[in-house]
């Protein structure tokens, strides 16, 4: 397997927080909303940090971003997609799914600009650390020959039910992060690369976090089951944010 190589996306419009915005945030002056920032848009983060093995720590959004949260970005005209909860549901606390990495980037840019905070997608390593206690054990590969690595992770059992469920329907991690398992896979910021990739090459596909490893082209909103895609594609694509700063904001 290629090693996971983590780096921050060149094209992810990270997150040019202006000095003024930082100042406003630090002062905590909610009344000063120079760009119409609405602090109700801020995601709910775990009070406790998730600590990595090297001692670094980050704070994770408790739920995946919901359709209700997403649509505030759509209302602001910053997210092109408008989402609906599944058919027949009116509650908006369903995970926002059907999102490409481009869509997710729109949301991230909007949220950081309006809130003055710096949220980001987790790295693959951070995602795995968050989810370590709630994920099922990885099954043994069904093929071991090097020429069959492309097929070795094919799952013939233990596949999760694909029907979307409301936020909070799955497990909760020790840090209080919910729904890391289940049938929504979450975008990470880590590019999928082989060993020794050429620096500066474009990134065509990213790791997504979920019940099994998956790599998804950045354009894909719905990883269809079919054709040459012989792996076990994720059922739904959504995301959650992390922050290096502790709450409350």
């Amino acid at each position, binding site marked *: 397997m290629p090693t996971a190589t983590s780096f921050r996306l060149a094209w992810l419009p990270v997150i040019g927080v202006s000095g003024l915005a930082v100042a406003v945030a630090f002062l905590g002056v909610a009344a000063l909303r120079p760009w119409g920032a609405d602090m109700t848009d801020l995601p709910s983060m775990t009070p406790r940090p998730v600590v990595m093995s090297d001692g670094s720590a980050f704070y994770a959004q408790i739920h995946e971003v919901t359709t209700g949260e997403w649509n505030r970005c759509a209302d602001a005209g910053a997210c092109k997609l408008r989402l609906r909860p599944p058919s027949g549901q009116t509650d908006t606390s369903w995970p926002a799914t059907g999102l490409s990495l481009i869509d997710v980037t729109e949301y991230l840019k909007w949220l950081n600009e309006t809130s003055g905070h710096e949220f980001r997608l987790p790295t693959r390593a951070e995602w795995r650390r968050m989810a370590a206690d709630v994920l099922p054990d990885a099954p043994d590969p069904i093929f071991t020959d090097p*020429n*069959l690595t492309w097929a070795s992770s094919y799952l013939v059992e233990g596949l999760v039910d694909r029907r979307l469920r409301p936020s909070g329907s799955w497990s909760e991690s020790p840090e209080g992060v919910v729904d890391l398992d289940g049938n929504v896979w979450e975008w990470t910021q880590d590019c999928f690369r082989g060993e020794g990739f050429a620096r500066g090459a474009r990134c065509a596909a990213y790791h997504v976090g979920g019940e099994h490893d998956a790599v998804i082209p950045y354009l894909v909103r719905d990883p*269809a089951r079919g054709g040459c895609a012989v792996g076990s594609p994720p059922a739904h694509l959504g995301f959650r944010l992390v922050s290096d700063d502790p709450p409350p904001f």
Partner: protein
Amino acid sequence: MNRFGKSIDTPTSRRNVLRGSVLAGAAAVTGAGAFAMPRRAPLRTARADAASAHLHKVAEQMTAESDAKPADLSGYTRVRQELVAPPFAPEHEQVATGGPKIVEITMDTTERLMMVDEDTGASIWALTYNGSVPGPLIICHEGDMVELTLRNPADSMMEHNIDFHASTGALGGGGLTHVYPGEEVVLRWKATKAGCFTYHCAPGGAMIPYHVCHGMNGAIMVLPRDGLKDAAGNPLRYDSIAYFGEQDYYLPRDENGDYRFYEAAGDDYADSLDAMATLVPTHQVFNGAVGALTGDGALKAKVGETVLMVHNSCNVDSRPHLIGGHGDYVWETSFTDPPLTNMETWFVRGGCAAAAMYTFEQPGVYAYVNHNLIIAALKGATAHFVVDGQWNNDLMEQVVAPRPTEA
């Protein structure tokens, strides 16, 4: 004897009842309370029970009124074939032993709510033979007779029948097999043509595509008595059968684009006709649902094993392709014509079933798709084989793993 006399004299002929049920269905959909259930009067059920109880008698009576000679059943041996759910095939002989058989089978016309796509929750009140989409694979040999008992459960909403493309006469048996809820019928027909053939429900008019596009179709394979052969007459044998039914669904959507849910079979009738009239399926899947034959439903094989892939496509054209493999021998039409060989992609005419034989030479995962890849990837027509065995570097090898390039 006036051949029309009976239908004029009889107030509830099959045809009249059929028309009545179509109208009742449409009226119910449009919300006419007068047609609330039960749609058929109890009298109807009583008649059905009476008819079922005296099937044998009814058959005798028809024989007495006919000029036709009775069938000569001497020399036939009765055997019972237990049908199994797709993608599997019933127990059978590849080469017939002994004389011709009367192959007895039973099918129930079951109406059941089925999930078409878990991701969206799209579902359908499927109209089925024996509860599966496609209906079960039937296998016999050329010269055998098939004797079908077709039973319509009492709690069905609709009438059903069956048209065997492999049979001769009476609209493929459709004219002799109309059964209403609580009725059964027995049809016997002789398999005179060797090949794979579709069968389907055909109650009449718009009900024909309605039933077919709700899953009510399947295949029968009529093998040559001495088995399958190549063009030179050498025998061809298989280790297993994989039976695919390609099903086009036209599921109605609401104003948001979400798939509608219906409380009972038939409630979707008017909406379905509108959706079908677009000729654009919302789903086109193997074996009833998106992903039915992938993941935990994937087919299994081993290197060196020969699989006969029987593909039924009752309504739409299909062009199956085994990604990473081939069709070593393909019978698109009959088994009496020599098979096509070494095919990359073959053709299943809509209203047809076809067979392709392949011996796996390499382990891994194979995707069996409709190679209209939009249909395969976006509409659902994908199945997987997981094949065990030893990798063969002569056939293929990754010489250099992906590495940086200056290109």
